[in-house]
Each structure stands twice: as structure tokens, then as C-alpha cells.
């Protein structure tokens, strides 16, 4: 039976962050994930490393930690972040002094993450920046946040953990916990496509996000969270170049922001009692978000929605509080202290921006338990690709690819972009643009299959953004399937099933926004893969 110091369950941002931290401290780590990196809340958030301006009022520690750690994240993975200047529209003069004072306080924390101090804008200035904004916006204040690709962030933490010796096992589900006669945890039983296996470990670290209540009950411990659903809508293209905060109908804050080639509108925050594996946006959530955006951008209904997506926040439990007022703080659960169950530690709560700090705290506790006194280094050493800067212009010229494609590559891979483009030396056909919406080159897909644990088309989508644009994969899914089938020598059936699962995931996202061009695109997609390709009749969908 394989034996580890620590088995980390869950490859979200906490799981990968903890696995990296522990592996860097020299521990023998196995990271186990039932699906893919960032397949839960870590991949379905707003993609912001933000200070949490709104937490300033009632959760000042979270705001401060987020800002401080955001600074560290910028240092270890500079290529993956982008500045997101926010405009906070104000409709009445009476409210202006309040926001100005508020942001003066925030400015003190913003420097920790290299944010610019706030400014105040006149209506004329706002119109110049956001021409489609409503006339009722008379003033605005600005502040700075940072955007990130959260899926890449998880992957890079996982990849770094692996580089320090951790074993990474995706598509591997924990089906049970191994216990000694006293009920203490001594390992996990996992299941993957090749069957079941027992893994012994001195500590099992649960970082299972919204699944934590499910996994805890199997372990015989209790972690109470208050899961909250956050729904987002993605629009085609950048509808604006600055992010806007939105006052929603219920007084909550929302936002609309440019993200890569698209625009993201979010988010809702509602208690969620359902199955975290089966969650989707609803009609009223979509209307709620659109209505909030329409208040500031009157033309928003004319824009093309391409999909919706949902994350379940594993917020810490509290009774008698409104969802929005729940603390974004995190907690590391030492079950030996709480329930007297040895060998298991859990983490819940927190936010993307402070993942590194949370991971450090959990890793510190585990090291104390195991008698290891190595120190945390995750804030000092770069994530893969962050070791040095590369010039996208030089890369584009050296390998003969469009600079725009090189730019996207460098955003996702930093210095590793060179290794990816190096694949085209032997096989120039890998310079081909597979996904025309974003654009993604064939060499990036091949690299992800060879070096980034991508086994399915959905894995590829998570790593490269192929199939995330306007056509949602109509044009590129078959092409990517062909590349994958060749690299992994998949059978026709395996490749077809991968295509079908990719289409099922697409369906989950766009089924809620089927109108206008998005409906036409879906008709084209089903006409291609079903009417002509006949995949629905040749394969049995699972």
C-alpha cells in the first residue's frame, strides 16, 4: 500500500496551495481530486484577487489579509494577473463624500497589493471611459483590483507541488476513509478508472470546498459550512474596458467586468441546500443580474450572453445572518482538538485572494502535528513560469506566430511559453489556431496533454480556454478531440465520449441563455455533432 505523510483531498485553490506548501517543506504528499483542478468554487469565481472592499466595514481582517496576500501572489505569478481598474458609479451628490472617505481608508490597504489610490470622476470623465453608461450616473470613484485566471492558478500550484515531489492524481475520487480501531484516520480509499486503491497517510487534509460536509461525514468528523450559490453570466466580447460596481435591486453589490475576450456579470449570493454536483443558474438569478446591470448600462439586454456558470462558496457556518453579511474568513479545523479524531485536518471558508495565507496556516498545523519544523516558502518562490519575464513580441517573431496568440500564451504560461512554442520546431503544423475565438494554438493543447495532466476535452478547456469563446466549441471541439486522440492514442469510443462530455458541459452553461445568436450557435452545434456526426446515436451518454 502506498504511504504518504499527507493525502490532500481536493484540487481547488486550497488543496493545491496546501499540497505545494507541504511538498516544498519536504513532505511526501499525494493530491487527490475527483474531477479536475479548480472544478468547484475555485474555478467558478469572479477571477479576482481582490481586497474585498465591501469587507472593509464588517470584516477588516479579511480585507487586510487579502490585500497583503494579493501582493505576494503578484510576486510569485506576475504573468497571470492583470490590473482591473474599477469604477464605482454614484448617482447622487449626497453619497459622494461617504464613498470618498471609504476609499481613503481602502487606499491604505490597496498599497499592499500595488493598487493605485482612488480618484473621483466627473460625469464627463465617466462617459469618456464608459460611453454606454446611464445618464443617471453623475459621479464615480475609482479603485484598483487585480484579475486572475483562477483555473491556471490552481493548476500552477498543483504543478509546483508535483515539481517538489508530490503525486497528483486527478479523476480520482475518495470513496472512504481508512480508520484504525479507535476511529482515527489513517488513509483514504480512492477510486479511479482503473479501480479502487487504499492510500495510507499520517494526515488526511480535507480541502473539498462545498463537498466538505459530504466528505466529513464519511470521515466521522463534522465541518459545518453555509454553502452559498454565486451565479455569473458571460457575455461575448468586452462590453467595456473598465469594471463597474453595481448596486443591485436589493442593495447588494454586483459587478460587471471585462475578462479576456468576454465580459463577466456577477454575482448572486444565496443559501444553497442542493447537491454541489448538480447546480445551475436559474431564470430569476439571470434576471436579477441583468436588471442590476441594466440600471447602469441600459443597453445590456442587446448584448449576447454566451453562458452562465455557478460556484458554491464554502462559507463558514453562522445562523441568523444574511448571506451577504457572512464572514469571508476561513478556518482550519484540527479534528484531534475538536472531536478527538487524529489524522485528519479540514479547511473551509476564505476567498481566492487569501488562498496562500490559508494554505500556509493549514500546512503549519500539519507540520506541527508531524513534528516537521520547515518554514513556509510559498510567498518567496515563483510558481512555474514566473521565474523570469519573457517578451511576447520576441516569442512571436522567433516562432512565427501571431503576437496576439503569443500574448495569450504568455498570460497563461509565463516563461513556459517558450517550451510550448518549441514544440512547433519539429511539428510546424502545431502553430495552427485551433480555437478561433480566443485564440488557442495546437501546440498549447499538445503541451497541456503532455505536461499538464489533461486527459479529457474538459480538462483542456480548463487549462487553455479553448472552447470558451463565442462559439463555445462548435468549430474547435472536433479538432481538439483529434489532437487529443492522437496524443493519447484514444479509441474512437473514448474520443467520442470525451466530445460528448465536453458538449454536455457546454449545454449546462448555455442552456440558460439560449436566445439570439447563442440559440443559433447551439442549433449549428447540434446539427454538426448530432445530425451529421450522429454522436448522440452512436454513443451512449453517461
Amino acid at each position, binding site marked *: 500500500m502506498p504511504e504518504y505523510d499527507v493525502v490532500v483531498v481536493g484540487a481547488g485553490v486550497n488543496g493545491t496551495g496546501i499540497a505545494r506548501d507541504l511538498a516544498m517543506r519536504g513532505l511526501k504528499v499525494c493530491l487527490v481530486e475527483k474531477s479536475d483542478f479548480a472544478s468547484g468554487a475555485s474555478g467558478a469565481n469572479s477571477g479576482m484577487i481582490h481586497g474585498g472592499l465591501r469587507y472593509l466595514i464588517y470584516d477588516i481582517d479579511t480585507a487586510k489579509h487579502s490585500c497583503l496576500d494579493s501582493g505576494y501572489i503578484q510576486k510569485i505569478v506576475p504573468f497571470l494577473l492583470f490590473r482591473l481598474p474599477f469604477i464605482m458609479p454614484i448617482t447622487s451628490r449626497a453619497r459622494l463624500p461617504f464613498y470618498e472617505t471609504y476609499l481613503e481608508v481602502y487606499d491604505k490597504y490597496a498599497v499592499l497589493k500595488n493598487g493605485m489610490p482612488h480618484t473621483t470622476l466627473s460625469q464627463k470623465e465617466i462617459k469618456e471611459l464608459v460611453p454606454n453608461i446611464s445618464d443617471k450616473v453623475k459621479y464615480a470613484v475609482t479603485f484598483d483590483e487585480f484579475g486572475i485566471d483562477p483555473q491556471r492558478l490552481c493548476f500552477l500550484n498543483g504543478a509546483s507541488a508535483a515539481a517538489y515531489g508530490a503525486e497528483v492524481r486527478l479523476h480520482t475520487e475518495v470513496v472512504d476513509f481508512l480508520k484504525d480501531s479507535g476511529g482515527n484516520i489513517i488513509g483514504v480509499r480512492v477510486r479511479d478508472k482503473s479501480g479502487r486503491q487504499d492510500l495510507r497517510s499520517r494526515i488526511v487534509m480535507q480541502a473539498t470546498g462545498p463537498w466538505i460536509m459530504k466528505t466529513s461525514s464519511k470521515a466521522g468528523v463534522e465541518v459545518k459550512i453555509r454553502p452559498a450559490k454565486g451565479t455569473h453570466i458571460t457575455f461575448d466580447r468586452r462590453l467595456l474596458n473598465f469594471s463597474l460596481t453595481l448596486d443591485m435591486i436589493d442593495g447588494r453589490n454586483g459587478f460587471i467586468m471585462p475578462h479576456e475576450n468576454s465580459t463577466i456579470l456577477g454575482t448572486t449570493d444565496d443559501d444553497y441546500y442542493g447537491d454541489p454536483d448538480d447546480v445551475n443558474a436559474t*431564470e430569476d438569478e439571470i434576471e436579477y443580474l441583468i436588471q442590476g446591470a441594466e440600471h447602469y448600462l441600459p443597453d445590456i*439586454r442587446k448584448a449576447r450572453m454566451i453562458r452562465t456558470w455557478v460556484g458554491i462558496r464554502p462559507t463558514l457556518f453562522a445562523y441568523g445572518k444574511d448571506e451577504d453579511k457572512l464572514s469571508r474568513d476561513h478556518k482550519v479545523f484540527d479534528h484531534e482538538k475538536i472531536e478527538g479524531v487524529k489524522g485528519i485536518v479540514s479547511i473551509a471558508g476564505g476567498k481566492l485572494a487569501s488562498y496562500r495565507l490559508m494554505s500556509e496556516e493549514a500546512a503549519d498545523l500539519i507540520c506541527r502535528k508531524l513534528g516537521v519544523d520547515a518554514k513556509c516558502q510559498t510567498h518567496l518562490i515563483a510558481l512555474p513560469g514566473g521565474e523570469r519575464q519573457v517578451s511576447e513580441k520576441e516569442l512571436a517573431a522567433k516562432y512565427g506566430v501571431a503576437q496576439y496568440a503569443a500574448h495569450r500564451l504568455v498570460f497563461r504560461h509565463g516563461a513556459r511559453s517558450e517550451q510550448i512554442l518549441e514544440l512547433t520546431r519539429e511539428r510546424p503544423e502545431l502553430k*495552427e*489556431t485551433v480555437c478561433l475565438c480566443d485564440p488557442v494554438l495546437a501546440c498549447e493543447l499538445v503541451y497541456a496533454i503532455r505536461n499538464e495532466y489533461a486527459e479529457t476535452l474538459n480538462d483542456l478547456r480548463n487549462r487553455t480556454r479553448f472552447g470558451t469563446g463565442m462559439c463555445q466549441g462548435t*468549430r474547435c471541439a*472536433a*479538432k481538439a*478531440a*483529434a*489532437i487529443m*486522440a*492522437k496524443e493519447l492514442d*484514444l*479509441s*474512437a*469510443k473514448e*474520443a*467520442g465520449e470525451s466530445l*460528448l462530455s465536453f*458538449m*454536455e458541459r457546454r*449545454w449546462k452553461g448555455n*442552456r*440558460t*441563455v*439560449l*436566445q*439570439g445568436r447563442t*440559440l*443559433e450557435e447551439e*442549433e*449549428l452545434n*447540434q*446539427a*454538426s455533432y*448530432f*445530425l*451529421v*456526426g*450522429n*454522436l*448522440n*446515436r*452512436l*454513443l*451512449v*451518454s453517461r
Partner: protein
Amino acid sequence: MKKIETEIVVIGAGLAGTAAALAAVKSGRRVMVLGRESGASAMNSGALDIAADPGAIPAHPEKWSVDVRKNIEELLVRSPMHPYHLIGDSGEKILEEIKKALALVFPGEDHFLSGEPGRNRLVFNQLGTFKQTALTQARMLSFEDLSRIRKILLVDFSGFRDFDPDFFRRNFLHWTDCLGARVELAIAQISTNGLSDKSSLENARWIEENFEETLEKLKSAVKSSAAELVILPPVIPVIHREELMTKLEQEAGSKVRELLSFPPSVPGKRLGDYLQERLKQDGIERLMGKAAGFEANGQKIKSVLARCESEEVQISAAGFVLATGGFLAGGISKSESFKEEVFGLEVFCGSEPMGTIFTEKLTSARLTNPHPVFSVGLKVSPEMKPLDRDGRITYENLCAAGSVLSGANYIFDGSAAGASLASGCKAGNIAAKSL
């Protein structure tokens, strides 16, 4: 604004519109067809579907019913609103009407189509998988072509970005093996000099422009391979197709077949061109443009407004046929509510008027199930006249045909061509006779 007068205006130049126009002309009417250049025919794969087996068990093609008459009868039971109900009440009668429409639109001497309307074949596409369909354009690769064949040569044109020969081979060998055929597949790459990473239409244009050169390259590749069958991806040109395939067959001595295509496609373009030609042959006037408005007097439509490239044209007529298709074709759109684009007619799903609805309600959570949203459209009287929500005829001189009608889910039923042809003919005949 220019003004024209005719007897019947058909809006839409796809299969349904063409069938309607040809039927009306046959009854001695003056007809004008208004529509985009090749309409939604560009979305055609090269196959003309009449009825797939509605009860096809996934992954068991050997059990799929190939009897089209039986499939239509099953479809009538399963889909109470299917446009086939407007054509007849038995599989036999409906198939009979489809055959009549086929004879009208594809007279046969030109051998544009192959296959029998009453029997489905398994026809291969560019992915290397296959579908069941009755008719295809001539020389598309069906399973029957593989009988007593062992050595196959697959041609890969270097400039065609949507074709992966390795992936095709992987799929093709798997599925032919499942069907019980043992074949060997070699690949020959034909270089399309200077053309790379391009669509099927751009490749077809290149081949057309470099016809002799391509033919020579193909001939030498085929000869040296000693293959019994040659498979070409769906990039074979529109004008020179027959010549290219015949010469290749004669001079290289092997059977030559083409694959069905994903839309938009070269076979679709060929179908569009064919339909244009048919209209011309029968003396039907053709106006390229988009219907952008209309004038009515009570329940009678007087004229439609055509927006053409350089001008607006008002076409007055006594009868009108609407054959504008579904979402992709542009006949129906959906924002908060569904909308029929030309006359603002009531849109139905089954027998329910739609109005404002959250589209998700018309879908199934399971992707591979049929989704009612793709069968929304107009509800018509037995005389093909669009009805309002109270069941009254909206305009007495307007008929509708083809995919703009509700009740058919062509992606799942595999009935698009049959329904378009038969309903088109019926609408054309009614429009002609009711003047």
C-alpha cells in the same frame, strides 16, 4: 423604391421554397422567389433526410430500422404536431408525396441525387462516423460502397483545416469494424500550395482554380496506392465535381466517394446552386434579398418589401408562401419572446402559443434528448395557412412550409428534407390554386 408585380411570391430559397415555387409554376402561375443567395441550403451536409428511425437504440446501428415508410409512421405516432401530419395520414401516402416532390425538384436525368427515398443507408461524414439517411448527393460514401472493398485511400488536402485524417481513420476503422467490414485505410496528402488553415469553401475554390493540377496529383496518388476505393473530404468543387470524380474513376480505375460535411459546407453550396438552377430552368424570377416588411389589407397580404443589396423593392402579389426556415436560417428568432421575422406570426411549440418564455423551459437537461426549442414554429391549418393563438387563419392568402413550421425536430427526427419538400409542394399547389 422599385415596384414589381407577380402572382405568387415565395419567401425563402431553400428546399421548401424551391419546391413551392416549382409546384406553383407547374400550375401555370407567375412566381417570384425572394431570398438570400443560397438560403440555408449552405447548412446542408450533402444528405437529404426523410425519416431516421425514431426508436433507434444508441450504439446499435445494426438494429436501426432502414424502412423509411415505417419510420414515418412511428414519427406520426410520437410527434403529434409533425408537419408530416399535414401531408397524409399514412407512411405510404406521405412517402408518395415526398417522391412526387423529389421528382419535381430533382428531375433525375442529371443524377444529382442517389439512393432510394424508401430506404435508409449508413452514410459517412468528415469525422469518420456515419448517420442514417435515405438520399444523398451522388457519390457520397455509404456503407454499401464498402462491400468487397479492402484497400482504401483517404485523400487529405493540406489546406483544409477542419479535417484530421488521423482522427478520421481512428473513427472510420472503428465504426466499419463495428458494422462488420474489414478495410485498410492509407492516407495520401495532396498539397494545396500556398493555401493553409482554410475552410472547406476556400479549399473548394482553390481546387476549382487549380483543377488540372489537382486532378493530376490525385490520379498519381491513386494509381500508386492501388486502392479499390478513394475517399475525398467534402471540399470537392461545385462546378467541376462531376468531371473530377468521373475522370478519377476512369483513369485510376477505383471507385471515388466524397464525405458528408459539417455545416456550412461545400455540398450545401452545391445544393444551393442546384436549386437556383432549377428555378431558372422553370422560368421562375429570382430576387436576391431579405423580406423586410409587408403591407396587408385586413386578412389579405398585398405586398412584401424586399431589401436587396442596392435597393428596396416592393413586390405585390395575390398569393404568398413563407418558407424562411428556423433559427439558423433566420425565419424565426428568439430574444425574450419568439418572433416570426417577416409577418410577425404567432410562434408555437407543439400546439402551445409561446409568447415570452425562458428558453430553458423548452429544453431537456440531458443534452442527447430532443429539445422542444428546436421544434418551435408556425402552426398551420390543413391548407398550410398560419394560425393565430385562437386557431384563426391570420392571412387568407399566406401559406407556410418547411422548417418555419412547428412540430418537427429535424436534428433528432432526421426528417428535414422530406418535410420541406412535401410541405413546400403542398403550399405551392394551394397558393397556385386559390388565386
